[in-house]
């Protein structure tokens, strides 16, 4: 996913100069050592270059193909149209149903992941003993590594039947089920990143609160959480951007019915699920139908990039305040 490079620090291509042979003093560095150092620098530079080039290439392909699409379909029709039927007549290229589906999944996932994730983070950072922490924290990271197809399968075999038991009108493929598993999927991310933010609140601040006869709960919610709010908020945005980009679980569980609806028990389609559908289907390359996926992809890319930039911003502001 190219957008990840936006939030991760870019690898530095230059190792510290003089780290090889510096101890002996400049005069005694052999030509062989210097040559080797140059080679290492060059190799590292190539690695950095490769990742930058890949990102540039992806964005270029997205942009040119999308450009081809927008020569035939007006941007306004795309952005504001309420019907998405690119594969059959009469054809409509309004992306709102797909966007709506994506937003519904993201909001639903947020409703699951944000309260639970924040609760876990508060528990981990303020209440858990160090023994519990050393077990739970790596566990969260492992949980974040479960392949997303497993979540999709979990939605179909567990969550959807449960929903249909509770509300029989629920469709086999429905937004709620997908939103719930995506929520479970991003929960470890919210918990782990919020926990980091909460733990970076200076100890001195907490001590100040305890010394004023605050209870642990009052310290956690009245001082620690407000002080860490920007970091916590950034974790929400980052996790939601992951929910927006999530593909496999929503493709499996939410269905393939692009429609503007507020009912989460209905079948919908997200932007990512649509891209999968066309990519796997037999739509001939070069046609307008085929190009839709680049337009949708560009929109998706823009949204997740914006969300990542926002969360990056927030985190940086937070660091400046406390470090």
């Amino acid at each position, binding site marked *: 996913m190219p957008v990840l490079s936006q939030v991760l620090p870019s690898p530095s291509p230059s190792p510290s100069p003089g780290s090889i042979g510096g101890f002996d003093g400049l005069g005694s560095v052999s030509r062989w050592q210097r040559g080797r150092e140059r080679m290492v620098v060059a190799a590292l530079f190539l690695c950095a270059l490769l990742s930058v080039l890949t990102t540039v290439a992806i964005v270029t392909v997205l942009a040119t193909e999308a450009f081809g699409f927008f020569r035939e379909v007006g941007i306004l029709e795309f952005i504001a149209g309420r019907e998405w039927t690119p594969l059959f007549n009469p054809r409509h290229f309004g992306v709102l149903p797909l966007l709506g589906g994506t937003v519904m999944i993201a909001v639903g996932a947020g409703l699951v992941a944000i309260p639970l994730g924040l609760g876990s983070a508060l528990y981990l950072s303020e209440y858990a003993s160090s023994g519990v922490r050393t077990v739970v924290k790596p566990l969260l990271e492992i949980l974040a590594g479960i392949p997303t197809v497993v979540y999709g399968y979990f939605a179909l075999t567990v969550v959807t039947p449960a929903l249909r038991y509770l509300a029989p009108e629920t469709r086999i493929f429905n937004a709620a089920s997908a939103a719930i598993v995506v929520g479970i999927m991003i929960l470890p991310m919210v918990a782990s990143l919020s926990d980091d933010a909460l733990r970076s609140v200076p100890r001195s601040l907490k*001590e100040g609160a305890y*010394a004023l006869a605050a209870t642990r709960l009052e310290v956690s919610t*009245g001082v620690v959480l407000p002080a860490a709010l920007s970091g916590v908020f950034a974790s929400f945005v980052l996790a939601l951007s992951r929910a927006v980009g999530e593909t496999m679980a929503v493709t499996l569980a939410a269905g393939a019915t692009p429609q503007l609806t507020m009912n989460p028990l209905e079948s919908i389609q997200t932007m990512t699920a649509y891209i999968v559908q066309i990519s796997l289907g037999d739509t001939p390359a070069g046609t307008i139908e085929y190009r839709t996926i680049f337009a949708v992809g560009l929109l998706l890319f823009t949204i997740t990039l914006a969300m990542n930039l926002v969360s990056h911003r927030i985190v940086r502001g937070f660091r400046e305040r406390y470090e």
Partner: protein
Amino acid sequence: MVKPQTVLETRNLTIRYGDSAAVIDVSLRIPAKTVTAIIGPSGCGKSTLLRALNRMNDLVSTVSVQGEALFHGKNLYASDVDPVELRQRIGMVFQKPNPFPKSIAKNISWAPLLNGYRGDVDELVEKSLRQAALWHEVKHKLNDSGLELSGGQQQRLCIARTLAMNPEVILLDEPCSALDPASTSRIEDLLVELAGRYTIVIVTHNMQQAARVSDYTAFLCDGRLVEFGPTDRVFTRPENSETEAYVTGKFG
């Protein structure tokens, strides 16, 4: 002169971090409405001893306490003592100013409101800031963040929020060590002023400060109480040669 009443007392108090003792067998009586200074070289256990008096050491999981610490004759470490209630009566100011990232007014009112204060909040804020000699500098910006104040102002804000709880005892752990000389002398003046109304225990490694502000001085070395007595006596006629070396600057 009537012998002053004892507010805080330690009896054979020993405090360990894991296996290593930071405070060893300290017995000490702190008289009411006076300023007691705890002096001694760095790492000798001053902070540990001070933090035992409002049970802040509870927050460190490795700490174990032996002996007694009494507040009005009652053991602080008895099982029925709630440390939160205790801290309503014994406030603390720290080495590094640590105002909350909240407005100046909220810094003051946050804890009293949590602890059942039902009076007028603006009045409490003004009164506390006046007591801490900060009111005139901040009265026009009570809604600004406490973090925007200078270091010396931040420390007075921390004193003000402690006073707002209306405690009996105020513990201060090197409150001026992060401040410039001008801010330091303002806070020293403030302490002298507050001394009549509160029992104050101040940790300092600045001998002049101890001499200027305190009525009693305890000299701690390697976790042990070496000498305790009226400040002028400890400084002019120390009974112990170690104390003498320390207060005359010939230590180590």
